[in-house]
């Protein structure tokens, strides 16, 4: 029931709070036994609301990748990828520790929690 939301926070803020605690958490629907991302108030498409937070393994694979060109004085080129998590869902993230144009589809990656512009962020490294 969500008629009165006083004193609670929604899934987006819960996700961010977990990140601030150093935990990369994703949601799982208990009745379907399926993970999903991004965080929501119900399972997308069928609406189940028996959800729980589970710590992600952090293991993933590059689904696609791009090298975003940027002037050196503005921080230089950076990678932006879509990562398929071992649990099934996909998310946007950066792959770091490798030249931004050298990230290839199918490469195995591992998540860590870092920060971008002062906010905690999930970043991936090549395994």
């Amino acid at each position, binding site marked *: 029931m969500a008629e009165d939301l006083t004193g609670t926070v929604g899934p987006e803020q819960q996700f961010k709070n977990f990140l601030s605690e150093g935990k990369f958490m994703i949601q799982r629907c208990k009745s379907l036994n399926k993970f999903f991302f991004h965080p929501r108030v119900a399972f997308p498409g069928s609406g189940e609301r028996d959800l729980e937070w589970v710590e992600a393994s952090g293991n993933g694979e590059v*689904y*696609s990748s791009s090298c975003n*060109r940027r002037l050196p004085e503005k921080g230089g080129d950076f990678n*932006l990828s879509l990562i398929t998590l071992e649990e099934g869902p*996909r998310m946007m993230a950066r792959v770091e520790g490798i030249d931004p144009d050298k990230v290839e*589809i199918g490469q195995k990656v591992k998540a860590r929690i870092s920060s971008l512009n002062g906010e905690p*962020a999930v970043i991936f490294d090549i395994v």
Partner: protein
Amino acid sequence: MDQNDINRLRGKTAVVGLAESGCGLASGWSAMEIMASAVHDALDDAGIKLKEVDGVFAATAFHSMAAMSLSEYLGVKPKFADGSQIGGSSFLSHILTAAMALDAGLINVAVVAYGSNQKSAGGFKTISEAMPYEAQYQPRMPVTAYALSAKRYMNEFGATREDLANVAVSARDWALLNPRAYTHQDGPLTVNDVLSARPIVDPLGKLDCCLVTDGGAAVVMTRSDRAKDTKNTPIYLLGAAMEHHHRMISEMPDLVQTSAIESGKRAFSMSGYNPNDMSTIQLYDAFTINTLLFLEDLGFCKKGEAKELVKNNNIGPTGNLKVNTNGGGLSCVHPGMYGLFVTLEALRQLRNASGDDVGQRLNGGWIDNAKLSVAHGNGGVLSSQVTNIWGVSDTL
């Protein structure tokens, strides 16, 4: 509801007037002024007075309530209006909604309009909010999204940047035949020009990306019984369908399959025609990858085969498929939301072939005997897909 009920819209409405305004550079003009100018020109083209307009449909990146702002500016009090914003394909869905409202008798004359002064006002303009779960990584939207799709496409089907470049080369060849095109005087492109252009978001370079221009456009629609008595050749809406399955690129179920598979299937079904029946094919080419994806998803070839279909300038003026015959968003015009320009070109080709004067083209720029055009709109990041099928009277 069965398919017969849905198909009752087939041929019930037509475009009877069209215009563009301020395409290219329109310094000193506001987006609203450009849009309203196009509406008045389209009504003049139709021979219909402003006071008869009772349906107003618009979306821009400058107005949060575009249909209301445009109505006020025109001095029109619409009985039905729709300002739905689903990105660049909005206008093709407005055309569907206008057809529904006309057919239901809610309105008698609809205008569908767009206007933008993004280029003269400083560059690409969007009112898109930051996407949760994406924004912190600072993607360069929309280019990053299309680059992610292009990279995946190349990986899955063995396509190369040369395959993507072929799309830009053919688009430019069409623009060279179209005096209205922004790059009409710029000369041809080579594959090497495209490959050596400044990289933006790999694998897409500057010439894989659409132009950034000003421009507005408008069309006037009526029911078909009235359309046949207007001064121009009416172009009938034979099929229309839409679908979308994501807003953020990270939520796209498969980066190489768009909802055009579904919108195209239903639009062609409503029209009673097949992709191969189309005299002209107008696709929303904001990026080179779009043309490959939409040729496949609309059924002009199988998935993964478009890279072969676009070889040897086969979608250029000398080729077998008449694709983006104005020069497209890549080489003709792209004022931020391109959907109404896809529509204009689909309509102009049919009107020209029917004897209307809709402007001059160099030899080969007009398609002889064109009777059917598909106009396909894309919005967001390969998100909303809307397909319209247009035909002249003997295709009804």
